[in-house]
């Protein structure tokens, strides 16, 4: 894994709710703390049902690590920081 590689993540939320904001903030912070660059694409499942179906998203919020491979799917608001970091593969 290249240190300079930019990580790409999809964050699926249901509209602009406080929970959505919380999850986004948690996600950003995880990467800031580990000093890893990341590109987060926020997808509103109501505005984009096709992407929801395509990515087989059921639980909200869902975070999918698209790059680097392999694909990793996390559900929940990422408040379990330790678990999120481990599963995402960041330190």
């Amino acid at each position, binding site marked *: 894994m290249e240190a300079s590689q930019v990580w790409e993540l999809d964050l699926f939320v249901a509209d602009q709710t406080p929970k959505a904001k919380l999850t986004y903030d948690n996600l950003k912070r995880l990467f800031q703390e580990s000093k890893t660059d990341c590109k987060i694409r926020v997808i509103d*499942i*109501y505005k984009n049902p096709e992407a*929801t179906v395509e990515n087989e998203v059921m*639980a909200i919020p869902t975070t999918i690590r698209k790059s680097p491979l392999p694909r990793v799917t996390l*559900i929940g608001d990422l408040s379990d920081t330790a*678990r999120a970091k481990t599963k995402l593969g960041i330190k």
Partner: protein
Amino acid sequence: MQNKDNLKTEEILEKSPTGIGGFDQITYGGLPKGRISLIVGGPGTGKTLFATQFLINGINKFKEPGVFVAFEETRKKLAQNTASLGFRLNNLIDQRKLIVDYIYIERKEIEETGEYDLDGLFVRLGYAIDSIGAKRIILDTLEAIFSGFSQESILRAELRRLFRWLEEKGVTAIVTAERGYETFTKYGLEEYISDCVIVLDHRVTEQVSTRRMRIVKYRGSLHGTNEYPYLIGEDGFSILPITSVALDYHSTKDRISTGIPRLDAMLDGKGYYRGTSILVSGTAGTGKSSLALTFADSACKRGEKCLYITFEESPD
């Protein structure tokens, strides 16, 4: 047998006809329209088949598009069932009358990192229903979500929400579930579905395999409360509504030839009465089978269909 006059007052609850042999009879019309019905049974009892037929008949016979939501374990079953019954799923999908949505849930792959709800599921279902204007939906087996997510309290709250949402959508839904040991269904889904509950049972009694269906609950409607035998055959699911074999048919004065001109002559020159039972009795070798066969043969020669059931001889 229920009095026919009582039935008129039951028209208030609209029914969704299933087109499944016998079922619409014992429910006086079918499943509750726009509501959720729960079909419970052990493995191999025909839950998926019943649900599939409800959907396909809905499309072919009643012009109602449908959505089949298949959870992980039923993908193969669905393919097998529909192939053996000759349902041309792909045609219906191409014609936008049917959507089959596979929802794959594998707990190992799902990492839970905090609170969540199942809005994604609602969006997917809504998308499928809206895209073809579906009026019927199957969730088979909804219980699969219990094996996918660990937070049962979240799941149960979301199930309640899901069922309310389905009713608001105005679709007639079937949810299938496995029989539980201590609870009625494995995960207690019966708590959330109160309009109609049907149990399918497959038992072996004295080495004979029998299938029985029972309507445990059907709110707001008359229904047969007995256990009804059912078969799963080449045409799919069919129920024998034994209590509806009532003496409410018309007797006819029509006659049918015996196939033996001289015998016809002895019977007013016309033969047997149609719709009657004729007993032919005699010792061995007197020609009972020949008489019966001649009757069957003459019917076939006239182009009529004949069912010949023989207990003592091989087809040769």
